[in-house]
């Protein structure tokens, strides 16, 4: 689903990524590990162009999104992202956090389609019988979009057992609750892949479990996930591929069993000896 070809990124002439090549298939759960400063977070942030790559390409569903000309917003809808510091919208309630993007974007599409229909119906008067463009039936209105988004949001909240927090503001929640809501916020967009940028690094130890549990559930449902993490246990048990990034390149990429039991790269051996 995502093909990364020779991805490069430099910040003010400091090279962070020096040519990363990796293919992520549908249903893959890829754990990305590496020492700090190795470029693993930058790699993840390049995948949805949060950082614009300096070179190479990222083919997402057949489109090179590293190209500055593509409408990146359109593609980001299909790529969820979960941050280390949750980044829930502080001025919105939990429910609004989840509903905001789906409602806003669907309403925007609706308006665009209505505009397009209007233009087409006017132009059709002048077009020949064969050249007439189709008028797309509009089946939803704004209220329906809102109602459906709300239903979906409540279902997602029930799933993580936080439906009574729907009208609370993020400042009243614990770290674990915030991160789980951040995860279902990206789920509400029905993404094809979710990128996790060290989702448990800012959590108190006792809250790491609940977040990992939710991620395990998503993995079991077949969600494609790319996870930058320091949780070796998670990488071992849940991922079907583990990638070791160091000095801006992929030093090793293997199944978790091989990766942890039979590491080849000397830097990886060194790294694993320190963290395990």
């Amino acid at each position, binding site marked *: 689903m995502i093909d990364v070809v020779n991805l490069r990124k430099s910040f003010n002439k400091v090279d962070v990524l020096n040519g990363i090549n990796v293919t992520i298939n549908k249903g893959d759960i890829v754990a990305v590990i590496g020492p700090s400063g190795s470029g693993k977070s930058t790699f993840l942030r390049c995948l*949805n162009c*949060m950082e*614009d790559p300096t070179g190479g390409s990222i083919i997402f569903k057949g489109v090179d999104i590293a190209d500055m000309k593509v409408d990146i*917003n*359109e593609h*980001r*809808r299909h*790529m*969820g*992202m979960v*941050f280390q*510091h949750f*980044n*829930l*919208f*502080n*001025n*919105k309630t939990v429910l609004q956090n989840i509903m*905001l*993007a789906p409602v*806003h*974007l669907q309403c925007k599409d609706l308006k665009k389609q209505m505009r397009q229909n209007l233009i087409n119906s006017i132009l059709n008067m002048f077009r020949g019988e064969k050249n007439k463009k189709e008028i797309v039936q509009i089946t939803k209105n704004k209220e329906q979009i809102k109602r459906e988004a709300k239903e979906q949001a409540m279902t997602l909240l029930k799933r993580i057992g936080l439906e009574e927090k729907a009208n*609370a*503001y993020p*400042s*009243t929640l614990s770290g674990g609750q915030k991160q789980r809501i*951040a995860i279902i*916020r*990206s789920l509400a*967009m029905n993404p094809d892949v979710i990128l996790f940028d060290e989702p448990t690094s800012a959590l108190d130890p006792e809250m790491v479990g609940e977040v990992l549990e939710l991620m395990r559930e998503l993995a079991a449902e077949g969600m494609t996930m790319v996870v930058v993490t320091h949780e070796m246990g998670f990488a071992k048990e849940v991922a079907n591929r583990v990638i070791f990034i160091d000095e801006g390149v992929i030093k090793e990429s293997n199944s978790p069993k091989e990766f942890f039991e039979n590491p080849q790269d000397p830097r990886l051996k060194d790294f694993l000896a320190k963290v395990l």
Partner: protein
Amino acid sequence: MGNFEKKIETFITIFFEQGGSAKVLEGLENTLTIAITGLIIGILIGTVIATIRVLPKYKLLPRILNAICSFYVAMFRGTPMVVQLLVFYYVLFPIIGLKMTSVQVAIMVFGLNSGAYISEIMRGGIQSVDPGQMEAGRAVGLSFGTTMMKIVIPQAVKNILPTMGNEFIALIKETSVVSFVGVTDLYFAFNSIGSNSYEFMVPYLVMAAIYIVLVLIISLLIKLMERSLQKSDRRS
């Protein structure tokens, strides 16, 4: 202090019997109109400029816009309000042949001037919001503009409300220069009452009192607004 009583009597006579009150009311109305409309225009201009100035700068268009905005801010912060008023009223508008009343010119100059200041206040406010908020908005597919409008600016406004209060208060007080282009404002009204009787003490004291009351009312309103905006901070 018999003298003082007489001064008050003179003031009261002029105020109530010789049309002083009408003049003061007109002045109050002009002062408030100029300050409030100027502030609203300033907020609109300031928000737009602040947004332009925090745009990512690797494309050409944002850079050009940014340069224009920097120039605008430098111009309006670099010259006194009186000079701007005089230039607009006596130089700029006659040259381009625009016919505007002196009150309209004052509103425009106050709007443009406070726009320059508010843009900097707003930019500080926007930069004080965690960059993660913008990232989170962009990550779910919202555009820069939408994220700005729905997520970042509401949080920025909450942070800068006290400073905005300052700006409004400064604006109200600065209206006292609009008589330079012939607007009857509070200062002008009381000054003419004073000139009628060559007795300035009481009119000036009353004028000071009115300004203070205005500013106190504004401070109170700002405090109320701050409290209502803080609802997302409170634990419920």
